């Protein structure tokens, strides 16, 4: 559970784990594999200074930035009162006008997952948020992230003022829960969806369980629900009093006990009981979807269904899903329930992302499916023929960064969709089915989404936050008249309305709303005569989403959250007929009602151009002793600018064994990286002198000093070229042979890298990884070839099931020239069954084949000294073959056997291998055991 940690380590726990990777560049290149974060866009960064924030923005999003600054100041005032503290330095707030730009940020290294709504980075306490067109969401995310800033500062302040070096760390579920609790004061239907699902489906979640849940969305809502429970059960303010008492406890449980006056166990019992009391009665009126609707899917994460009848009158449901670790578009035949995969996302440049949760599909009567995918910087519209199973057209628009939820006109000649420009505004657009003649139907600050053509093609219904409740995140439904260009209100009040769909007759619209608490499906009928009836169709405590009429309006297909995932359901037409008759409504004129607030005069300090200023991110030191080399000590420092585009990395170490050698054994490397543009580049200088040993050369001293140039050009997310060039004075002195090699060397390395791998907890499970590298070293003075290198490493993973695959690897490396490199083979990471570095030579060949399969999902061992939790224990059947040689290839050495992998969390994967050796004529009787750590290849 939680534990006491030092203040300096606490910062690391809040930071993304990927920060480690960027400060460990590879020797011959930057990264051996890995996917790319591409800076497609040049931003002209500026800084808007307000009373408590420095807001980083670019000119196109100036209005959004001013509103963001206003939201930030409002949130600061509230949080300052809640936490009873002030933050005495300006908080950096970096705003991107679209999620597409947000994913390009260099504030943290590594790729950002699709659905990250914002983050706080704790080295410089930077808050980074995207704007997705919704001001309510923008406001909420800014406040959520500022809660993290205040939480972090409050804990440090509490410790600091008492001169305490160690404080308890808050569990992740509490950290995210308090952020949700303070940023979203009203009851969110998502809490009922997540927490209710656990309790109503027979998996009541205790506080103890919450410690073992990862950083996924459920812990946000569970944590929020817990904070609400404490607030309502123990008194208003008790949640914040936890922070005042933080220094008094050894761990979170003790702090909770001190503050609430009850044992952790008692609090847990009360918590679980309160949730049971809240959710169990819901089944007296509502139902779980499995019991009232026909369940269409049973695996994965399934959303956005659309009905389609093909040329053979076979009925299909076309939908989006994540069933294997990446998103895709699938079709389910309703006659035999056979599943067909149409499109695989996140595997190729055209489908970098399919926007699983944000964008629906559109299927025309003649079998053309329109869907949106991300390619490079922005989105494109794809037209896919479901009959021929081919893409027939693709187009994108220069002005639109993000596109979502297309819909076909009844005649199949036009498409309507929601689009976001570089300025961040979300509006409705219409174009020809070829992508030509793009017209903007709405042009304002409101978020307009989910447009749908009426069956007669004269009107478009869409969801929009333009009404008076829109700024609080409760959009209404509106009608756009294509003939007159006018907008009328279909329905708008404080319930919020989403995802509309027309009936085939055009007299009804179904949609979702949280009118009754959880999000459910409702219907507005009588639209044609203008006197409408509002009625509820579903009453599912865990929610219903993305409704679509099917079978000629005789049923409704939808997605519902149940047992921790989304599945598709089909509800018969009688549900709509039986729905409770509700209020009578009329279509009303629409009037614009709110404007985004701006920063007022007293808070606004000024706007400046962004200037690169560096500050220290990492400073750490290490002292070690090696039996062979002796004592070694070192220090590494990393400096970056506020946007992470410019980085300085410095390593200093010393390997002297006596004071006489101290100056000579000083090693230093300073490298500058520029990640601002698409081409990432770096330059550096270094000086190394080490005493080394290997089996071939024996003892030797190697000294280098020189400069290095680095460049990386990404073709897209999956492929890149890298060039690394050294110019160095090189000297190698053999102790045993009293021989010396030296020269001024020029060494370029060129690499081509491709990585489409999908990972699970112990390593890649699908896709491929490729690294081809060539390099040569020339003696600048003599012109002779000093050494040369070729490396080819190809790995392919063939998926068998969710957690199993067949993995193959072919690896070849060769070195030549006057001073070739020698490479080593053997050990858990290469030729298994043989000792570490058993073989060496200028040439290495290795082939590995492995079937990876799941063994145990999770095992929990409780001991008196503590609890141990092992997740994702995987097995492997492997076969390796390889050799190392200098001039003459001898014979292949092989091994085969069985292995196990255990993920201990973070980066640590333990490896156990049991192997038999073979020379392809005989097999050893002895079983060789290897224990090491590291990911699967």
């Amino acid at each position: 559970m939680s534990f006491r940690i030092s203040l300096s380590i606490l910062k690391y726990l809040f930071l993304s784990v990927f920060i480690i990777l960027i400060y460990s560049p590879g020797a011959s290149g930057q990264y051996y594999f890995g996917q790319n974060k591409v800076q497609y866009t040049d931003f002209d960064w500026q800084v808007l200074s307000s009373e408590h924030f420095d807001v980083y923005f670019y000119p196109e999003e100036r209005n959004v930035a001013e509103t963001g600054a206003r939201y930030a100041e409002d949130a600061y005032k509230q949080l300052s009162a809640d936490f009873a503290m002030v933050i005495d330095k300006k908080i950096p707030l970096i705003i991107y006008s679209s999620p597409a730009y947000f994913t390009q940020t260099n504030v943290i290294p590594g790729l950002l997952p699709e659905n990250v709504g914002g983050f706080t980075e704790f080295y410089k306490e930077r808050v980074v948020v995207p704007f997705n067109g919704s001001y309510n969401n923008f406001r909420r995310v800014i406040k959520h992230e500022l809660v993290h800033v205040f939480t972090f500062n409050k804990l440090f302040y509490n410790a600091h003022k008492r001169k305490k070096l160690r404080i308890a760390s808050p569990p992740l579920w509490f950290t995210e829960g308090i952020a949700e609790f303070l940023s979203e004061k009203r009851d969110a239907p998502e809490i009922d969806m997540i927490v209710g699902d656990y309790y109503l489906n027979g998996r009541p979640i205790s506080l103890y369980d919450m410690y073992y849940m990862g950083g996924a969305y459920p812990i946000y809502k569970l944590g929020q629900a817990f904070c609400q429970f404490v607030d309502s059960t123990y008194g208003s303010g008790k949640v914040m009093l936890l922070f005042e008492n933080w220094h008094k406890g050894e761990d979170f449980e003790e702090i909770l006990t001190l503050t609430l006056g009850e044992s952790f166990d008692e609090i847990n019992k009360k918590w679980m009981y309160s949730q049971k009391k809240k959710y169990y009665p819901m089944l007296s009126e509502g139902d779980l979807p499995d019991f009232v609707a026909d369940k269409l899917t049973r695996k994965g994460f399934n959303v956005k269904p659309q009905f389609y009848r093909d040329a053979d009158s076979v009925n299909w449901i076309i939908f989006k899903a994540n069933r294997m670790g990446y998103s895709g578009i699938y079709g389910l035949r309703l006659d035999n329930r056979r599943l067909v995969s149409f499109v695989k996302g996140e595997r190729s440049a055209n489908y970098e992302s399919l926007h699983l949760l944000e964008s629906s599909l559109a299927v025309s009567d003649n079998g053309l499916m329109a869907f949106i995918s991300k390619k490079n910087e922005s989105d494109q519209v794809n037209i896919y023929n479901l009959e021929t199973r081919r893409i027939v057209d693709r187009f994108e628009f220069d002005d639109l960064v993000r596109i979502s939820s297309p819909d076909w006109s009844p005649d199949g000649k036009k498409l309507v969709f929601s689009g976001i420009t570089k300025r961040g505004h979300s509006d409705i657009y219409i174009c020809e089915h070829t992508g030509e003649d793009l017209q903007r139907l709405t042009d304002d600050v409101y978020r307009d989404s989910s447009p749908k053509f009426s069956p007669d093609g004269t009107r478009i219904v869409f969801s929009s936050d333009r009404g008076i409740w829109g700024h609080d995140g409760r959009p209404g439904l509106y009608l756009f008249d294509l003939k007159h260009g006018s907008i009328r209100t279909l329905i708008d009040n404080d319930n919020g309305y989403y995802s509309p769909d027309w009936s085939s007759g055009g007299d009804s619209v179904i949609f979702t709303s949280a009118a009754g608490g959880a999000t459910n499906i409702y219907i507005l009928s009588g639209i044609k005569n203008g006197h409408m009836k509002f009625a509820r169709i579903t009453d599912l405590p865990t929610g219903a989403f993305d409704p679509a009429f099917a079978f000629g309006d005789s049923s409704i297909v939808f997605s519902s959250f149940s047992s921790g995932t989304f599945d598709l359901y089909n509800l018969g037409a009688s549900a709509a007929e039986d729905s409770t008759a509700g209020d009578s409504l009329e279509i009303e004129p629409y009037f614009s009602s709110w404007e985004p607030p701006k920063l007022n005069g007293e808070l606004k300090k000024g706007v400046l151009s962004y200037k690169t200023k560096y500050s220290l991110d990492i400073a750490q030191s290490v002292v070690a002793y090696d039996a062979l080399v002796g004592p070694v000590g070192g220090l590494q420092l990393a400096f970056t600018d506020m946007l992470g585009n410019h980085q300085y990395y410095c390593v200093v170490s010393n390997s002297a064994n006596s004071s006489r050698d101290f100056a000579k054994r000083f090693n230093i490397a300073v490298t500058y990286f520029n990640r601002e543009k698409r081409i990432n580049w770096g330059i550096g200088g270094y000086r190394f002198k080490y005493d080394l040993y290997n089996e071939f050369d024996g003892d030797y001293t190697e000294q280098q000093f020189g400069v290095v140039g680095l460049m990386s050009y990404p073709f897209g997310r999956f492929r890149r070229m890298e060039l690394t060039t050294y110019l160095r004075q090189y000297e190698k002195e053999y102790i045993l042979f009293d021989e010396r090699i030296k020269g001024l060397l020029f060494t370029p390395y060129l690499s081509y890298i491709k990585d489409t791998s999908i990972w699970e907890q112990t390593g890649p499970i699908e896709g491929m990884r490729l690294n081809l590298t060539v390099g040569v070293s020339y003696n600048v003075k003599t012109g002779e070839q000093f050494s040369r290198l070729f490396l080819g490493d190809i790995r392919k993973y063939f998926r068998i099931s969710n957690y199993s695959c067949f993995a193959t690897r072919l690896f070849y490396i060769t070195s030549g020239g006057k001073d070739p490199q020698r490479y080593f083979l053997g050990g858990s990471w290469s030729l298994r069954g043989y000792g570490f570095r058993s073989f060496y030579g200028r040439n290495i060949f290795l082939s590995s084949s492995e079937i990876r399969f799941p063994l145990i999902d999770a095992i929990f061992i409780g001991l008196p000294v503590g609890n141990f939790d092992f997740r994702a224990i995987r097995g492997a059947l492997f076969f390796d073959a390889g050799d190392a040689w200098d001039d003459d290839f001898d014979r292949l050495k092989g091994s085969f056997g069985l292995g196990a992998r255990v993920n201990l969390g973070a980066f640590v994967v333990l490896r156990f291998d049991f192997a038999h050796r073979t020379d392809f004529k005989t097999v050893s009787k002895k079983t060789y055991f290897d224990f090491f750590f590291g990911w699967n290849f």
Partner: protein
Amino acid sequence: MRGLRFFIYFLLSAVILFAGCSKTIKYRVQGEADLTSDEGWRYLRYDENNTGFVDRHVRIPLEKEWEYKTSAEVNAQILGHRDFILAGDLSGKLYMIGAQSGKKLGKMKFKGGFAAAPYLGDPILYFATDIKGSKTGALNYRRGKLMWEAPGRDFIGQVSLGWGILYTGEIDGRLTAWRAVDGAEVWKKDLEGAVASGCFLQDTIIYAATEGGFLYAFDYRTGKELFRGDYGATFQGHITSDGRSLYLCSYDSTVFKIDSQNGEVQRKFIAEGSIRCGVALAGDTLYVCSTSGNLYALDRNTLRQYFRLDTGSPVMVPPLITSDKVFVASLNGILYVIDRFSGENIYEYDAESPIVSAPLLFNGLVIFSCENRRVYAIR
């Protein structure tokens, strides 16, 4: 010779023995303090019967007279007596500082931290420290001698003294009455919730309010419960009284006026922002500050608002009242000087660091401490 040697050995032994028995005798007594009399000082706590107060004018503008650096933050009420002040910090150090000079006169280390407001007598200081090593006790600060001490779980809230009994409250709800002269336990009670308001003695009744939302009244001597009220509030800050009614504040922004005899709620006032400290009472006006930065002036009888001033930054400590001014210490580091009748902001003194202790007016100086671990005296 032998006699002389014997005398020297005796003297040395006495010195060593004396030094070993005493704790940190590092100060010297200034001036000609009369150790037997208690005149010349009254501890300005808000539990006084509201009979008026000494007219103290503060000259504007304010200028720093001195500053003193402490080891950790000073949150507890700074106390003044004769010509020195006593400030206890959160690391458990107690400083005796010359009131006019700002020079250290003495220092003593205790286990735990000074979060609870101590009680200053002459020459005894009654203290209670928090968290690990938490202790309550009595210190003769003239002699630097600890009279007695007793361990606790975690003393919070202000201590109270009267009728020869010291009253302390703890985080686990324990309310204890100690005999002031030797620390013997007279009685103890377990209340529901942390005793966040500390203890308040009025006549023969000791009151304590808890974070669990309860207000208790006990007989001072026997500990017999006179009444207990459940108010559904998370009480914070000290208790104030006008002799007939008690004034308490809660985290959820409410000021309560409660009948001191039977615990009935007479009035309530809802402020903006949570209230983390007690009220200040002067004449017929109640002054209270909230974390939203507001200072409210309320009618003592009806709790009707006279005026409100927004300082813009959270206020965690009760205001200081003089005959015509209110001093509000804010977390933005500014000490606001406000006309206590009109609510007009007269002056602001910028300490440049969040002010974390209630201001003390002593010998013409306004004394407070800041987050930067400094005690300031401004004139």
